[in-house]
C-alpha cells in the first residue's frame, strides 16, 4: 500500500514539475520583464496602447453579449422542444468551430468587402455599394465573426446546465402559480448560472485575447495585435511584455470573478431519481420553427466558410454574388507552394506530440484529483485549468522569453533552429484543460465501486487501472485527445509567434503567410483553409458522436 501511494505521489510530483516548468515559468518570465511599473505607466501614457486595450475590452464585451443572446435562445429551444432534425441541428451548430476565426475572416472579407458578395447583391438591386469594413464596421465585423465562432462553447455549457435542472424544480414553480416567464426568470435562469458563467467567461477571455481575427481584418488597434507587431523590435522595446502583463491581469481577474460567482451557484440536479420531463412536441407548421432558428444561425455561422469554399473553387470571386469559373487551380497552387506541404507535416508532428503530452498529463491530473485524492492534487487540477484563463499570447511570449533567459530552455527549444518541442509543449500545455475536464467528468460519472470491485476480485492497482478504469473512461480520453489534437492543428497565437523559420511553419502560420501573398494568395489560402476546415470538422463530429450531450463538459472550468 505504501509503495503504491509513493508511486502515485511520484507521478503527481512529475506532473506538478511539468506544469511548474512549462506553465508557471513562462508566465513568470513574462511577469519578470513586464511587471515594471515605469513600463506600465509609460504604456498607459501612450494613447495608441490605451486605445488597443479599450478596443480589446470592447470586442470582448460585445462578442460575449452576442454569444450569450444567440446561445441562450438556441439552448432553450433545444431543451424545450422536440422538432424534426433536432439532433442534426445540435451537431450542425459545431460547424462554426471547424475553423479558427481568423480563417473565417478570410471568407467574411469575401462577403462584406467593398467588392464582396453583399455589395454585388446591392448593386443588382440598384443600390450604391457600402464600405462595410471601414470605420467602426471593422470592429463589428471582428465581434460578429468571433461571436459566430465562439457561441457553440457557450451553447454547449447552457444545454448541459439546462439538462441538469431537475424538472421537479420548474414543475413545483408551475404548481405554485408561476407563469412560464416567471419560471424561466426565477427558477431556470438562476439554476443555469454555472453554465452561463462558464460559457461567458471562456468567451470573454478568448475574445479579449484573440489575435488572428483582428490581424486578418487589419484591425491593428487591439492589444493582441500590438503585442504581435511588437515582436520584431522586442529587444529594443519591452512594451509588448507590459501589454502581455496587462492582458494576463485582466484575464485572471475575469477568471477569478467567474470562479467566485460559480462558488455560490446552486446545485441544479436532484441526484437520485431524476426523471427527464421530456421535450414538448410542436404540431403543424410550428414544429419547424425551432429547426428554422437553428438553421438560420448555422447558415450565418457557416457563411464565411461557404464563402471560403467558393473562393477556393473559383478563379475569380470579386464583385459578383456567386463565384466565377469553377477550378481546382487554387488547390494545386496551395499544394505546390513551398509553404504548404511541409506545414502539414509539421503541424501533424507538433499536434501528435502535443496530444500525447496533454493526454498523459491530463489523465494523471484527473486521476490524482478525482480518484487518488492525493494532497496537492487540487493544486495540480487548478494549475491544469489555468491555461483557460491565460491568453495564448502570454504563453507564446513566455516561451520566447524562456529560450532567451535560460540556457537549458534554449537547448530544449530553440525557436529559430529547432522549435519542435517548443511548439509541441506550448500546444500541449494549452490543451491540457480539455483532457483534464473530459477525463475528470468520465471518472466522476463512473462509480468508484467498480474499481473497488476489481481490487476485491484480485486485481492489483495497475491492472485495475488498465482493465477497469481506463476502459470505462476511454471515450472521454479519446474526446480530450481529439480536442487536444485538432485545436493544436489549428492553433494561432503560439504558431504565429513561435514558428520563425519557414521550414518549421505549422498550418496556421503558413495560411497567414499565404493569405498575405498578393495575386493568387487569397485563393490558395482559401483552398488550404478548406482542407483544414474539413479536417477539424471530422474530428469534432467524432467527438460529438462519442460523448453525446456530455461534450459540453469539455468546455467547463
Amino acid at each position, binding site marked *: 500500500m505504501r509503495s503504491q501511494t509513493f508511486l502515485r505521489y511520484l507521478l503527481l510530483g512529475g506532473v506538478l514539475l511539468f506544469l511548474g516548468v512549462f506553465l508557471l515559468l513562462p508566465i513568470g518570465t513574462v511577469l519578470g520583464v513586464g511587471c515594471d511599473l515605469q513600463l506600465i505607466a509609460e504604456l498607459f501614457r501612450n494613447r495608441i496602447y490605451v486605445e488597443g486595450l479599450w478596443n480589446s475590452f470592447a470586442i470582448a464585451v460585445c462578442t460575449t453579449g452576442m454569444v450569450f443572446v444567440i446561445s441562450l435562445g438556441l439552448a432553450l429551444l433545444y431543451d424545450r422542444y422536440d422538432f424534426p432534425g433536432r439532433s442534426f441541428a445540435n451537431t450542425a451548430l459545431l460547424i462554426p468551430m471547424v475553423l479558427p476565426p481568423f480563417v473565417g475572416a478570410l471568407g467574411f472579407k469575401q462577403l462584406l468587402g467593398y467588392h464582396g458578395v453583399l455589395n454585388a447583391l446591392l448593386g443588382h438591386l440598384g443600390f450604391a455599394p457600402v464600405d462595410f469594413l471601414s470605420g467602426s464596421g471593422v470592429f463589428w465585423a471582428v465581434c460578429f465573426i468571433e461571436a459566430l465562432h465562439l457561441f457553440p462553447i457557450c451553447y454547449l455549457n447552457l444545454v448541459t446546465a439546462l439538462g441538469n435542472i431537475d424538472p421537479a424544480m420548474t414543475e413545483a414553480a408551475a404548481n405554485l402559480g408561476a407563469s412560464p416567464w416567471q419560471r424561466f426568470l426565477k427558477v431556470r435562469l438562476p439554476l443555469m448560472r454555472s453554465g452561463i458563467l462558464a460559457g461567458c467567461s471562456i468567451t470573454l477571455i478568448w475574445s479579449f485575447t484573440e489575435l488572428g481575427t483582428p490581424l486578418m481584418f487589419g484591425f491593428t488597434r487591439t492589444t493582441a495585435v500590438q503585442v504581435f507587431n511588437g515582436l520584431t523590435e522586442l529587444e529594443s522595446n519591452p512594451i509588448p511584455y507590459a501589454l502581455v502583463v496587462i492582458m494576463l491581469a485582466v484575464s485572471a481577474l475575469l477568471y477569478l470573478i467567474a470562479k467566485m460567482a460559480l462558488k455560490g451557484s446552486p446545485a441544479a440536479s436532484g441526484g437520485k431519481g431524476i426523471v427527464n420531463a421530456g421535450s414538448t412536441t410542436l404540431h403543424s407548421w410550428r414544429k419547424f420553427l425551432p429547426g428554422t432558428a437553428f438553421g438560420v444561425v448555422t447558415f450565418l455561422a457557416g457563411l464565411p466558410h461557404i464563402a471560403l469554399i467558393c473562393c477556393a473553387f473559383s478563379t475569380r470571386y470579386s464583385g459578383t454574388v456567386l463565384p466565377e469559373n469553377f477550378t481546382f487551380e487554387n488547390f494545386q497552387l496551395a499544394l505546390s507552394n513551398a509553404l504548404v506541404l511541409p506545414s502539414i507535416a509539421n503541424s501533424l508532428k507538433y499536434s501528435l506530440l502535443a496530444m500525447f503530452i496533454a493526454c498523459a498529463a491530463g489523465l494523471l491530473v484527473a486521476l490524482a484529483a478525482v480518484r487518488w485524492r492525493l494532497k496537492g492534487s487540487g493544486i495540480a487540477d487548478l494549475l491544469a485549468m489555468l491555461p483557460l484563463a491565460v491568453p495564448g499570447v502570454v504563453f507564446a511570449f513566455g516561451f520566447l522569453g524562456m529560450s532567451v533567459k535560460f540556457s537549458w530552455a534554449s537547448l530544449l527549444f530553440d525557436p529559430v533552429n529547432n522549435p519542435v518541442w517548443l511548439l509541441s509543449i506550448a500546444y500541449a500545455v494549452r490543451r491540457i484543460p480539455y483532457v483534464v475536464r473530459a477525463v475528470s467528468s468520465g471518472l466522476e460519472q463512473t462509480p468508484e465501486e467498480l474499481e473497488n470491485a476489481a481490487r476485491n476480485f*484480485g486485481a492489483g492497482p495497475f491492472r485495475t487501472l488498465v482493465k*477497469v478504469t481506463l476502459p470505462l473512461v476511454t471515450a472521454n480520453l479519446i474526446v480530450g485527445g481529439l480536442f487536444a489534437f485538432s485545436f493544436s492543428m489549428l492553433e494561432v497565437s503560439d504558431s504565429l509567434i513561435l514558428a520563425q523559420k519557414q521550414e518549421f511553419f505549422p498550418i496556421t502560420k503558413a495560411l497567414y503567410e499565404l493569405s498575405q501573398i498578393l495575386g493568387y494568395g487569397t485563393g490558395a489560402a482559401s483552398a488550404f483553409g478548406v482542407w483544414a476546415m474539413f479536417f477539424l470538422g471530422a474530428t469534432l463530429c467524432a467527438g460529438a458522436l462519442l460523448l453525446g450531450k456530455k461534450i459540453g463538459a469539455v468546455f467547463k472550468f
Partner: protein
Amino acid sequence: MAEVSIEKLTKSYDGTVKVLDGVDLHINQGELVFLLGPSGCGKSTLLRILAGLVSADSGSIFFDGRDIISLPPEKRRAAMVFQNYALWPHLNVFENVAFGLRMDKVPRKEIEKRVMGSLEQVQMEKFIHSAVTQLSGGQQQRVALARALAVEPAVLLLDEPLSNLDANLRDTMRREIKRICTERKLTTLYVTHDRREALSMADRAGVMHNGKLAQIGTPDEIYNHPADGFTARFLGDVNLLPCGGGIRPERLKISEEQGKLRARLLERSFFGDSCEWLFELPGTGKVLVRELGAPVRSIGKEYFLDYDEAFLIPAPESGNEK
C-alpha cells in the same frame, strides 16, 4: 472457507469522528453472521475494512489465524457483493464473473466451468453472454453473487445486497442466498439495516451502535433477550411498562376480565393476518398490542392487559409511541 477473528478494530475519520470503536467479532467457519445497525453505525465500514478497501486505524483481522490486516484487497480472498452490485458495464456477464478467476490465473477450461457453475447456482446461465446493462436489478444482483461465488472466497461479504430490489424479489433472493451459503458452507458476513432479513436468515446476528458491537447472538437471543434498550428497540417495537421494564407488543394479552394493567383502547390497525391495537395507560403513555387475526373490540372502551414477566426486556429511553 475461513474462520474470521476481528480484534479491537478501530477507525475514525478526520481523527475525530469514531466510526469503529474497538470492535471484536468472531465468525466460525461456514457461519452466516449478520451485522445490523442504523445508518452511520459503522457496519459498512467494518465490511470494507475486512475487504481491504478501507484501512483500519488499529486492531487485527485473522483469517484462519493469519493476520491479514496489512494485505492489499486483491490478496485477501474476501469476495464482496456490493450494494449497487458494481458490475463492470464494459464486460458482459461471462467476463464479469470470470474476472476474479483471470486475476487468479485459473486455466481457461476451468474458468469456463466455474463461471457456468456459479451462474447455474444463481439460475443465470441463460444470460451468460448478455450485456450486464441489459439485465434487471434482480438479475444483476444474481450476477454479482455469482461473481463472488466463482472465486471460491475465504469469506463472502455482502453489503446490503437486496436493498435495491422490490419486496417480492427480496424475499426470493433471501431464500436463494441462505440456500447457497448453507450448501457451500460459506463463511459469510452480511450487512443490512433490515431486521426481518437478519432475523430470518442469520445463524448469528450482531447489532452495532456508535461504532461498537452492542450485542451478538442467535436471532432468538437478541430478539427475546436484548442486552440493552437500544438493541431491543432496533430489533422491534418495545412498550415501556409502568414497572420500568419493556415488552414486545405480541407478548401482551388483551382481556375484558383481568390483567396486570388497565388501559383504554384508542386505535386499531388492520394488516390482514394480524391486528395492532393502540392503548392508553393512565399516567404512563401508550402501549401497542399485536394479535393474530382480528377480533372485534370497541374503540374507547377500557380493557385489561396481561403479560408474563419472563418476557420483560430492557426498555429503551422512550417507549412505543405511535
